[in-house]
């Protein structure tokens, strides 16, 4: 899972050390306009830009691949769905799979959608992989006035996530030790999964409650205005990053309009 991989050690790279909120905004500004079109060219251009700036985030192509490969599963799903259910089957027939005619039209649409998935998701993956969660919470509170109660609270909860994996294993083993297993019965498997998940949830809530008390004991609920030990600054370079992201995305869309391949999602 993308979320549970440790933050990539990218520290000093030019774009990696930009303000986390600026990085997040840049990713959104770059990705969001890509949704507007169904043609394969726009996402291809966007992907080219993304892969070109990757080194500026201090990230290797291998590291990006390790985080992005689950997207390939979604892409495969889309190809299968389109081959089976596409209503428009324009163009020349490339192959026939039983009752399904695989035409060039179907393949172009599928290609466009697969490229879109990658083009839209990669900026987010790059930003989260090169951003320390603490820095992100700090920036959300300091630069966009997100409530500290929410941002720091979520950060503290996030720290407990890896514990859930260990907890799940212990709960599963403990059930076996109590004589409970599902054997080959899928219904019993589902029930066992449900009861283990419930126990995990109960434990997580308890732990969360204890953490909340400990945080309040150190003044988290004090109501005095918080100060910040770590400063997050939103500077000119950060604004430039956001503007640049928007310009590049617009450029990709403009190119596809000028070349006449632009296929708006609406209409």
């Amino acid at each position, binding site marked *: 899972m993308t979320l549970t991989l440790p933050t990539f050690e990218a520290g000093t790279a030019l774009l990696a050390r930009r303000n986390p909120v600026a990085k997040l905004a840049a990713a959104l500004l770059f990705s969001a306009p890509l949704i507007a079109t169904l043609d394969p060219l726009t996402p291809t251009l966007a992907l080219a830009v993304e892969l070109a700036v990757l080194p500026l985030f201090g990230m290797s192509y291998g590291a990006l691949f390790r985080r992005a490969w689950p997207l390939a599963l979604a892409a495969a799903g889309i190809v299968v769905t389109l081959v089976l259910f596409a209503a428009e089957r324009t163009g020349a027939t490339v192959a026939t799979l039983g009752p399904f005619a695989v035409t060039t039209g179907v393949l172009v649409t599928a290609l466009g959608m697969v490229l879109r998935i990658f083009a839209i998701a990669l900026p987010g993956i790059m930003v989260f992989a090169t951003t320390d969660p603490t820095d992100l919470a700090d920036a959300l509170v300091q630069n966009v006035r997100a409530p500290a109660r929410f941002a720091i609270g979520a950060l503290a909860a996030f720290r407990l996530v890896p514990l859930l994996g260990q907890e799940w294993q212990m709960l599963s083993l403990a059930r076996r*030790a109590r*004589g409970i297993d599902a054997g080959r019965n899928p219904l019993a498997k589902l029930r066992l999964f449900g009861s283990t998940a419930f126990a995990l949830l109960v434990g997580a809530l308890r732990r969360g409650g204890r953490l909340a008390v400990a945080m309040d004991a150190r003044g988290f609920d004090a109501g*005095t205005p918080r100060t910040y030990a*770590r*400063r997050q600054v939103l500077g000119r370079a950060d604004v430039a990053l956001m503007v640049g992201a928007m310009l590049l995305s617009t450029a990709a869309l403009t190119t596809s309009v000028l070349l006449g391949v632009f296929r708006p999602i609406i209409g």
Partner: protein
Amino acid sequence: MGEVALRGFGWRHAGRKAWAVRGVDLRIAHGERVLLLGPSGAGKSTLLAALAGLLPEDSGEAEGTVEIDGLDPRKARERVGIVFQDPETQLVMSRSGDDVAFGLENRGVPAGEIWPRVDEALHRVGFGYGRDRPTGALSGGEQQRLALAGTLALRPGLLLLDEPTANLDPAGAALIRGAVTRALGDDTTLIIVEHRVAEALTLVDRVVVLEPGGGVRADGPPGAVFAAHGDRLADEGVWVPGHPVAPRQARTGPGETLVRATAVTLRDRLGPATLTARAGEALAVTGPNGAGKSTLALLLGGLLKPTSGTIEAAPGGSPHRWRAADLTARIGSVFQDPEHQFVTHRVADELALGPRRLGRPEAEVGRTVDDLLDRLRLAKLAGANPHTLSGGEARRLSVATALATAPRLLVLDEPTFGQDRRTWIELIDLLARLRDDGHGIVAVTHDEDFVAALADSVHRLARAA
């Protein structure tokens, strides 16, 4: 600063019939060091929560008064710091320095003063790493030191410690004792709750004993209090120094082999280990944190598949291949955290589960349940929800659930961890009886007293290279 005054103080949690604490009259002067004692359920932790201002008015009913420097504790929160048992749920941030800074930020300390105060607090508790050390990479004892630093950085006039070493192994407990000794200035009042008296005795000059029914039973210098009340406190479960427990020696030598592990390993968790569990023998597995003791217990219990090496039960081959129900009839596992093993909503159902899954007749299941409820002093709790039990009750129930299917071998992971003296002695007696009846006992433990009192042989695991 840090003066405490309680007059007829009592607190009842919302929805409870009994008062958690009641009728407490107590004055603690500036700079005093107090050990707060009492049997389980005397209300020690509730009292600390009240002093820390962590009992919201709408969460229960109060009686009498409690004041810190003449103020309601809820309004004196800045003067009080508290460290709880569980280090894992006290740390907020992922870098150590940030975690100490967290409280300072909350209190609005100017940014320029924060880092010098963080460094000073880390130095005071003897934290051995830099500010950037990830909190997840710290041992339990180091995490608890960090939690202490996070509290001390706020310069509380009153420091409350709620069993700060209960979740730690002996090495971690020593770290915390050292840190408190080192860090505490003369101008800080200290109240510590700790049922392992020896852990706290070097830190305090006054002992206060709470009476479970309400009020204060004893109050004075440690020597005087223990001379007058030591025996009774020991009987009630407090670990009073100078009350050793006689060893329970085996009546017969070890019998036939029940399970044999040969060069067994588990990737990243356990180096090669070879040992034999025999009938009529109590085997203790000891070793430092990270040596894979708990992993070995899971392997012997047939719960994990070894990466290499073999685990052979005689007869029957490898336990990890058995169906779960068959496993419970041969090998019982007791986990460190009893709650991991509870799967029903009633204590009696919890005991009936194992025999039922083995298809034993209902009349026999009933007899087994009644017998165990009786033997482990759980009869009054038969209808209670297992998750509402006290630590000692939950431990007794988790052992009883493993016994319900009458396995020949019992594998226990830190069975005495955090237990009071009374439950501890009950466990030792129960396990000694089982051993003398021909059961095999394997216990993973840090508890040297447990090893001395029960173990017939010891297998020491070294830290995996």
